[in-house]
C-alpha cells in the first residue's frame, strides 16, 4: 500500500502541473467538454468536496494536532496554538 500511495502521490504532482500547463498551452483549441446543461450531477450538494466548513476545519485541526503531516488539507489553515 505504501508504494502504491507513493506512486499515486508522485503522479498527483505531475497531474497538477500537466493540467495547468496543458490549459496554458491548449485552451485556444481545446474547448470545455462538459456543457453547462450537463452539470446537474456535479452541482449536486453531495458532490461537494467538503460540505460543512466549520466541521471540516475542526477535523483538520484534530488531525494536524496529532500527526506531523500538515498542509494541502484543501481548506484554509490558520494559527492553532496547538504546538
Amino acid at each position, binding site marked *: *500500500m*505504501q508504494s502504491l*500511495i*507513493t506512486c*499515486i*502521490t*508522485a*503522479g*498527483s*504532482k505531475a*497531474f*497538477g502541473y500537466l*493540467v*495547468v*500547463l496543458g*490549459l*496554458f498551452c491548449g*485552451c*485556444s483549441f481545446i*474547448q*470545455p*467538454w*462538459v456543457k*453547462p446543461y*450537463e*452539470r*446537474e*450531477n*456535479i452541482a*449536486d450538494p*453531495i*458532490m461537494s*468536496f467538503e*460540505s*460543512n*466548513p*466549520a*466541521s471540516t*476545519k*475542526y*477535523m483538520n485541526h*484534530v*488531525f494536524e494536532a*496529532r*500527526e*506531523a*503531516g*500538515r*498542509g*494541502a*488539507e*484543501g481548506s*484554509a*489553515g*490558520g*494559527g*492553532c*496554538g496547538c*504546538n
Partner: protein
Amino acid sequence: MFHVNQQHSPRIAAHLLLLVAVFAQGTALAAVLPEDRSELLYHSYEGGGVTINGPSVLVRKQFAETVSVWGNYYVDMVSSASLDVLTQGSAYTEERTETGGGIDYLHDRTTMSLSYTRSIETDYEASTVGIGISQEFFGDLSTLTLGYSQGNDTVMRNGDENFSQPAQHQRFSLGFTQILTKNWIMSFSAETVSDTGFLNNAYRQVRLSQVGGLSTPFESYPTTHNSDAYALRSMYYLPYRAALRAEVRTYTDSWGVKSNNYELRYIHPYKDQWIFETKYRAYSQNQADFYASVFTEPREFMASDKEMSAFSDFTLGLGASYEVKADWASVFDKLTLNLYWDYMSFDYDNYPNKTPENTQEFGLGNEPAYSFSANVIRFFVSVWY
C-alpha cells in the same frame, strides 16, 4: 514545493507567471460567492487521557452580490491527563479561544480573500493573516487558487514569567480543481509551510540516561522547519445518486518526517431529507531525525514527542444529516441537523508506554509501545438564508 528561500524563489516566480498566463486566457463566465450560511457546532474529542470539547460558530453573509464576510468563534476546553502529562507533571485543564473573520470579494470570475485569526491560551498566543485568490476559467470547468498566510506566535510557559519566545509560520498554497466529466471532479492541492522560532513544546522533557544517572532536560527542536504536502482528491457521482470520494496525500519535511494518508468516503442520500456518510482514513509516518524515547548523550536537538515518532493511525467515520422541513423552519431557506462520529486508533512503533510501572518492569527504553483510541463527535446545526 516552493520554499521562501533564495534557492526556491525562481519556482515561486514560475508559478506566478503561470497563474497570470492562465488568467489572461480565461473564458468569461461568472463565479459565485460562498452561500449565506451559518453553522453552530459542538465538538468533542476523547481519548488517550485527553478530553477536548467546546463550541464553534461560523456565520457568513453576502452583501451587494460582490462581497461576502464571515466570522468564526471557536473554543477548545481541554482536560488533559495524557501519558506525557502524567509522567512529567500532573493533569491540567485549560481553554483555547479562537476568533477569526474574513472577507471575500468577487469581481467577474475572480474571488479575492482576506482573513484574520487570533488564538489565545494562557501560554500561547497566535495571530494569522491570510490572503487568497481564486480564478474560474475554461468554461467554469477549472478553478485555480493561490493562498498565502503568515502567523506570528508567542510561546509562553505557565509558572515561568520570564519565558516568552516568538515563532513565525508562513504557508503557501496552490490548488487546482478540474471537472473531468459530467460525473467526475478532481482536485490537486500543494502547500509549503515554513516555520521559524521556538517550535517545540515549552514543557515536554526528554529522558537522558548517562553514566551519572537519569536526567530530564526540556526538548530542543531546530528553529527552522520547512514542509511540503501534495494531495489529490477526486469525487465521482454514482448512477443512483450517491457520491464516492477518494483522497491521497503525501508529506515531507526538513526534520526527516515523511508521511502518507489516504481516505475513502461514501455519501448516500436517503429519501428527501437524509444524507448518510461513511469514511475510512489511514495515516502513517516515520520518525523525525532527532526523535528518541531515551537519549544516551546530550544532543543539540532532542525530541520525545509522540507526534515526532514513527506511528500509524486509522479513522472510521459515520455521519448523518437531516434536513428539517417543518413549518417553523421555513423562516430559513434550508435547515439541517448533523451528527458525525469518528473512531480513531493510534499505534506507535517507538513511542513507549513509559509509565513508572512499565519502566520498572521492562527497563528504561524497553517499555512496550504505546497505543490508544479516541472518539470524536461533531453535532451541528446548519442554516441557509
